């Protein structure tokens, strides 16, 4: 297995953080927690969703000392000292008051499941506790702080148990409402007004620049690297700074250029509408990299276009709550059924265009009109679906595009699950336009972002990336 270059390039002392990025944690709290209701019940109407959004706008984020709630516990600025612990009447939960005044509640079962005693948890972090042995009627007999741990004694039908949980673990995993609220803000991606750029030399040589590049991809959803050497293998080399290339039915790398037989629109000079690639996979490619190898001056048109589909989905919800609901409920069919090729493929994945988490927030969006198979849903849903589909298509057309004319040496990296991409048509006028591309798995990308936030940055949470993660 190829070694990723990522961490070898990093200096542990590096702390350069671009101000543009650090301001990305918006102070505007759009919260679906506003009235503590979720929209996952089928009965909840779309207007509730809208109300939640509007109410959310009015919720102001209280100053909070916490910088991170990730499971990486050694965070700067995280209060680990406990002022007092009170077991609640009923003995089913306890309240922890921290030195900084923050208060969090923990339930007996939650505490037992996160017990750090030797028989409950392997030194490598994996849980050894048998869940069936944890009774829901477990009560807390005592909870006191000793050194850096909370020592708890529980009793239930299976007898009693005493164990400990480090206080820093408790603080970073607490589920106080304010904490959850703050996390929602941290992980919500905000649309970019322009495409951030970095230079290839800087990534290689300038401290903190590799991290900055990867942050841009996570926060803006897209980043262009300038002055990448025009070699055939560079797109893979750049990808491997983050993780191994993800091979697909199109191979490890692919070329986008006008070919005489034009078996796919991508290989013609026609315009290509906004879409995502390979959505018929359960986990479509995460990052897409396109390295501009040739783009002659004489070629007219051919600009690349991008649109943040998460932002558009949020707008769609506000404008057409009912239609939005339809696109979360009625599944579309995405497919690539092609027998007339070396390796016949019959890939079909049925799923709604928009997926929501338990709080009603958008956690995945799929849009790929060229790869939609026949709708296969109940007859009652067909008309409803097409009305919603058409309206969303029209809204996307009004979206504010990021448009860019790639030059040879430019390498654009974008999150395929968040940014729709396409291109204007072009006239070659005897010249050439050729891009070389490859993909990266989304989970590996998100992992690298989180690792870098913890090793190089301030330990913040990675933004949502569209991989159906409900967090």
């Amino acid at each position, binding site marked *: 297995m190829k070694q990723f270059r990522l*961490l070898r390039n990093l200096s542990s002392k590096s702390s350069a953080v671009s101000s543009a990025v650090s301001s990305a944690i918006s102070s505007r709290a759009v919260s679906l927690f506003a009235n503590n209701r*979720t929209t996952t019940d089928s009965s909840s109407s779309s207007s509730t969703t809208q109300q939640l959004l509007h109410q959310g706008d009015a919720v102001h984020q209280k100053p909070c000392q916490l910088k991170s709630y990730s*499971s*990486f516990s050694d965070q700067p600025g995280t209060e680990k000292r406990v002022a007092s612990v009170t077991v609640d009447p009923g003995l089913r939960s306890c309240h922890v008051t921290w030195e900084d005044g923050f208060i969090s*509640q923990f*339930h007996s*079962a*939650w505490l037992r*499941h996160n017990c750090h005693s030797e028989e409950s948890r392997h030194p*490598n972090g994996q*849980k*050894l506790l*048998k*869940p*069936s042995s*944890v009774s*829901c009627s477990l009560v807390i007999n005592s909870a006191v702080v000793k050194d850096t741990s909370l020592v708890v004694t529980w009793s239930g039908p299976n007898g009693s148990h005493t164990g400990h949980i480090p206080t820093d673990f408790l603080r970073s*995993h607490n*589920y106080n*409402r304010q904490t*959850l609220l703050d*996390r929602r803000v941290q992980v919500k991606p905000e649309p970019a007004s322009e495409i951030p750029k970095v230079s290839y030399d800087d990534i290689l040589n300038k401290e903190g620049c590799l991290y900055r590049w990867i942050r841009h991809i996570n926060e803006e959803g897209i980043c262009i690297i300038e002055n990448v050497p025009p070699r055939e293998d560079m797109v893979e080399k750049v990808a491997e700074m983050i993780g*191994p290339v993800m091979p697909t039915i199109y191979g490890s790398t692919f070329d986008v250029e006008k070919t005489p037989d034009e*078996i*796919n*629109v991508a290989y*013609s000079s026609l315009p290509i*509408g906004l879409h995502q690639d390979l959505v*018929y*996979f*359960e*986990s479509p490619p995460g990052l897409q990299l396109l390295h501009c190898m040739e783009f002659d001056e004489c070629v007219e048109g051919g600009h690349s276009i991008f649109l943040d589909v998460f932002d558009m989905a949020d707008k769609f919800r506000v404008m057409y709550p009912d239609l939005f609901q339809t696109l979360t*409920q009625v*599944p579309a069919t995405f497919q690539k059924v*092609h*027998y007339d090729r070396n390796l016949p*493929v*019959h*890939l*079909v994945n*049925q*799923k*709604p265009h928009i997926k929501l988490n*338990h709080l009603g927030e958008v956690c995945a969006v799929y849009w790929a009109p*060229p790869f939609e198979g*026949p709708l296969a849903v109940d*007859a009652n849903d067909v*008309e409803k679906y*097409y009305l919603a589909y*058409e309206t969303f298509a029209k809204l996307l057309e009004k979206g504010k595009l990021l448009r860019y004319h790639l030059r040879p040496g430019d390498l654009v990296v974008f999150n395929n699950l968040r940014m729709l991409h396409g291109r204007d048509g072009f006239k070659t006028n005897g010249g050439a336009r050729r891009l070389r591309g490859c993909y990266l*798995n989304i*989970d590996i990308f998100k*992992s690298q972002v*989180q*690792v870098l936030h913890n090793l190089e940055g301030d330990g913040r949470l990675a933004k949502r990336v569209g*991989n*159906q*993660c*409900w*967090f």
Partner: protein
Amino acid sequence: MSEKMSSSATASHLEDIKKRGFYLDDVYRHVKSFAVKDVQVVEDGKHLHIEWEDGHVSRFYSMWLRHNCHCGVCLPHTNYALIDFTKLDANIKISSAKKESDEVIVVTWTGENSEEKHHEGPLLTRFLRHHCYSDAAERTRSKQRAMTFHEDKTIPTLEYDSVVNSDEALYKWLVTLSERGICLIKNAPPSLEDMLKATRRIADVQPTIYGTTFEVESAPSEVEASNPAYTRIGLEYHQDQIHYESPPGIEVLHCVKFDECIKGGENFFVDMHEVAAKFKAEEPEDFYALTRIPSIADTVNYKRENPVHIRIQRPLITVNHKDEIVNVLWRPMLMAPLQVPEKDVQAFYKAYKKFYTLVTTYKSIYKHRLRPGDMLSFNNRRLSHGRKPYSENGHRLLQGCYMNISEFQSKVEAFHNKIGGGRFAVRSGAIDWQ
């Protein structure tokens, strides 16, 4: 003159569709009842009624038909549809529909309030019958896609030589994995390359954070092991690497060494979809709690050469729009602290405990002690696997790899159409609402 031109144009519809690559012979040859008895535009152009020779009736919505128009403008290239919905009228109407031949119906649409006022194009009758969305057609599809569970938990076996050399045996392997979720390949030669020679018949290896292929052998000490799999301790039921959006699909464990003197080390498997179906029937309230309240699977390890910090939050069970179970995820060992609104914390643990108990005490399970030469393949998305602890004498070495679930399912569908009778593949356990 104009009449003649139009008739010669329509006569070539079928040929034209074939030329563009949209006549999927391999799929459509299984559609036997495609002869149309009667075609009628009804409800002022909103729907098309088709009565088939075998008595079945289909009803297609105007926009559904427009979305699937097979003309050269809408489908210019293989697998690439170009229909601009922003130019279509939401209330598009079918103005006429005419049977051109047994294979083609030509439809014209009109839309008053949009850019596209008029459109004409062909649709294949076999396509229409294949994709008919009537209740009856949907019932047939649902039945074919549903997993079935057998009381008999004998692991089906095939010979290594046959799956490597014959497409029929390969099809048998695919069907067994698709329908039962497990298949033992016997008498495989011991090298890694020999294992890959067989698995590549299905799909390329799915690489993960543990590499492209992996070895299961106990590490010198428990604390050194990055994963309990590399120790001799028992492993409770789990699916591998559910921290990925698309966790490994088919898993292969190829036994290279397993000395007779070793006590223990048997593998056991439980069908998570079978257990989940029972849970749904017996404890609906708790079942739906697990479809609604997400838990987090994580792998966080900064001590590796390439640190990983993968976390994914989602429910353990997913149902589709028809309330059918499509996805079950299980790995108690990888569960990170629950992070959901307080009101859901107790409900989750109540349901989780019940489901856990049902899974771990389930009686009908597969068991097997691997022998050198055994290549055990199973669907990691359908079965949870576990291992008994084993004694410290002797040598036990397994090698293995994974295959992506979408690619596996593609292969099964393709083989059903190429070699089999053209049925829909049984659900694979992937997050796919079909």
